[in-house]
């Protein structure tokens, strides 16, 4: 478990939390709106806990004060746009990956990280229950979203030390049972270089902080 891996985890959570929060008030129905807003708050809080662990004196500067090239999230999490099916599919694929990552944290030699992971793990159980219910209900209507999300999801593993096979063993049978065809694709890598969607996200997410970095929000 390296600091670089921990930073990647914090950045993943922050970007997903930000993208989820963009659905507040705009999701297709009110229950989805409430759920996505809660998911956003949970992911943001996990990010905050990890940034605080990495930089106890100034977690905000770590979260919002870096140049775009210094962020380490996977490309899956920066994708924007108003595609609800993609958001649902991304959340599911990511939350199963996160379950594996939390187990990695629980096995670390860092007691504070283990304590945070313990808390994350209890909240994440609700995320997965929610994701699975939604995936099962929407079924094969998610095929275009899955085709788009799948190669990006494979890119999550880059540099994490986590085994993709372990994740596949969970998601492939579930996706198949929901009537979806798992695409064959090469992973889209990019934890160290980001696309145009991130430029817009970065401006939105960090603009206020960068306007006056000395201020306490």
């Amino acid at each position, binding site marked *: 478990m390296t600091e670089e891996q921990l930073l990647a985890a914090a950045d993943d959570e922050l970007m997903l939390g930000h993208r989820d929060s963009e659905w507040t008030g705009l999701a297709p129905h009110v229950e989805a709106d409430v*759920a996505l807003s*809660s998911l956003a708050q949970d992911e943001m809080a*996990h990010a905050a*806990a990890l940034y605080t662990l990495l930089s106890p004196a100034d977690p905000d500067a770590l979260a919002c004060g870096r140049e775009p090239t210094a962020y380490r999230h996977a490309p899956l999490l920066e994708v924007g746009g108003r595609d609800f099916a993609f958001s649902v599919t991304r959340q599911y694929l990511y939350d199963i990956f996160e379950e594996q990552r939390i187990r990695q944290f629980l096995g670390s030699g860092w007691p504070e990280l283990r304590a*945070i992971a313990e*808390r994350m793990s209890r909240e994440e159980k*609700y995320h997965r229950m929610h994701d699975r219910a939604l995936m099962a209900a929407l079924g094969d209507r998610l095929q275009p979203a899955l085709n788009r999300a799948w190669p990006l999801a494979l890119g999550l593993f880059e540099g994490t030390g986590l085994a993709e096979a372990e994740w596949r063993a969970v998601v492939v049978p579930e996706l198949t049972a929901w009537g979806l065809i798992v695409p064959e694709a090469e992973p889209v890598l990019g934890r160290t270089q980001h696309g145009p969607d991130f430029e817009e996200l970065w401006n939105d997410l960090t603009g206020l902080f960068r306007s006056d970095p000395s201020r306490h929000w």
Partner: protein
Amino acid sequence: MTEQQAYDALARVMDPEIPTISIVDLGMVDEVRVHASHVDVALLPTFLGCPALDLIEEAVQKAMPGAVVTFRNDPPWSTDRITEAGREALRQFGVAPPEDVVRCPRCGTEEVLSENLFGPTRCRSIYYCPACRAPFEAFKAI
């Protein structure tokens, strides 16, 4: 001030989101140390990044002037720490306490429907009780 007096003061500090339950009954108090000059209070946040922590710190200082409040994540708080009195206080507020089986806080039936695993705050889910023909919230078991 004795340790008992300190706990009595903390028992008057209510959760900002559920004002019928105290931070003692929520199981948030990890350690209290009484010194000649002040009291150290170590609290466990109920949720990571809970936005109410500043309010709780202020309320503790109001109840016990000069108290020094710290928050720690280790040991992790869990809903198992909520006391029996705390569970009753949640029911009084209309929120089902965290249990393996969710029961309607009004009539007690287990015949309830899950409406949304998420709710108005991060710690609550939304259910519906057909007997009462009314929705209710349940504290997540975490």
